[in-house]
């Protein structure tokens, strides 16, 4: 009877079953990560090592990208606001755009492509070279010893990276508008100070970056752990990490923005 179904319908059915199966596996995986997280805090140096791997090693790309995004934002903002005689408001524009949206979102996309892909590759290769199995046979739980510290390292890195991205962006905006174009420095900072709200803007931005950090790290680790133990399998897993993380970040950003800034 199943054979009588059109090929397209069968394909949709198979893909749906696979997607549900993977969702179940991912939920079980994250459950185990949470359950075995004790060691990540009892031996906090394991988490610090991963914080270095995911966070410190991503600093260069975050700092440089943040600076350039700020430079472009300052330039575009100044050119637009000048037409309406409110060039001094450029500080507000740069700060709000970065703190509310660009900081968490762009930092998360960069984090996914730099640290997320590296986590997937590391875990995938550890699996394909039987390092995880070897650990299990040495009575060392890979979830407790490797995967949970990686998760918490990534989770803690992301808000810090997003904050650094925003700071560098604001500095880039200041550099282009105040130092180079000549907008009044006092106006730049005072307008920013009066219009950026700690709870509505900064705290919400931090919440976004925490959610993105959890999502990207969870996707990266699951893809690495679930990768078929071959070179091709690991390579596909890395690609899936970057694509899925990017889509997840953008979708989550829409949902969070709708709740945080529009009163939905």
């Amino acid at each position, binding site marked *: 009877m199943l054979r009588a179904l059109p090929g397209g319908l069968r394909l949709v059915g198979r893909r749906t079953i696979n997607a549900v199966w993977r969702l179940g596996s991912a939920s079980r995986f994250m459950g185990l990560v949470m359950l075995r997280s004790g060691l990540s805090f009892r031996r906090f140096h394991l988490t610090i090592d991963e914080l270095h791997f995911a966070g410190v090693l991503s600093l260069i790309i975050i700092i440089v990208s943040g600076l350039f995004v700020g430079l472009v934002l300052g330039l575009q903002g100044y050119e637009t606001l000048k037409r309406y005689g409110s060039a001094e408001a450029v500080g507000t524009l740069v700060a709000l755009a970065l703190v509310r949206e660009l900081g968490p979102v762009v930092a998360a996309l960069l984090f996914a492509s730099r640290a997320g892909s590296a986590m997937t590759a590391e875990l995938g290769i550890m699996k394909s070279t039987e390092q995880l199995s*070897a650990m299990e*046979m*040495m*009575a*060392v739980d890979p979830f407790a*010893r490797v995967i949970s510290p990686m998760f918490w390292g990534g989770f803690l890195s992301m808000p810090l990276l997003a904050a650094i991205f925003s700071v560098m962006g604001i500095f880039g905006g200041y550099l282009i508008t105040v130092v180079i174009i000549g907008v009044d420095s006092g106006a730049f900072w005072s307008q920013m100070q009066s219009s950026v709200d700690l709870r509505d803007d900064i705290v919400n931005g931090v919440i976004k970056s925490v959610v993105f950090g959890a999502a990207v790290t969870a996707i990266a680790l699951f893809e690495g752990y679930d990768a078929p133990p071959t070179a091709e399998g690991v390579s596909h897993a890395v690609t899936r990490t970057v694509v899925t993380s990017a889509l997840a970040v953008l979708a989550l950003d829409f949902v969070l923005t709708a709740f945080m800034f529009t009163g939905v």
Partner: protein
Amino acid sequence: MAFPRGKVIAIMGGSGTGKTTVLRLIGGQLKPDGGEVRVDANPVRDMSHAELYAMRRKMGMLFQFGALFTDLSVFDNVAFPLREHTRLPESMIRDLVLMKLNAVGLRGAQALKPAELSGGMARRVALARAIALDPMLIMYDEPFTGLDPISVGIIGNLIRRLNDALGATSIIVTHDVQESLKIEDYVYFLSGGHVVAEGTPQQVIQTTEPFVHQFVHGEADGPVPFHYGAPAFGEDLGIGR
């Protein structure tokens, strides 16, 4: 199948016959659909997560390509189980690691990274790591694969010597008939997931059982056919049967 204390026992058979699966069943990485695996009289299937990990502390396993942690040095690889499972001071861990590395002849390679080791050296480091906690059971998954004859001899010799020195039990999954028959006390032959023959090395060499005879003497055709199942050759060429 039984693996008595103090013995070196080999499991042989063609690829895909379930040899490595036996090791994974013993280590509790797989659960059996039927039958029972007992280690030290305790059924592995019924063990909780904690009991399983407690049992594994008494086991060592050498993986096919060593499975060394690539970000750690040779010294740190061997020290890994000691640091994870004991609270020994670092000075004592250093002494123990050097003793294990000396036993496999690689004390001088302690500072190297796995990427700097040859296949045989990596296997020896993995062996030192597997015996770091003086296990009662050591399992070897294809320990001779891809090694030159000198390394094969060294690994074979180490397996026997370490087993006798530790008073442990060793289970070797291997294809290498010549080397393994020199060191083992007993052999099981698997085919299609079943034990098809067993015996001492002497019995195995003299056996007339067709599968074992083909395997031990490396004959191309026999109970394990040379040709993979296919239609008649003439039919495939389009010239009739």
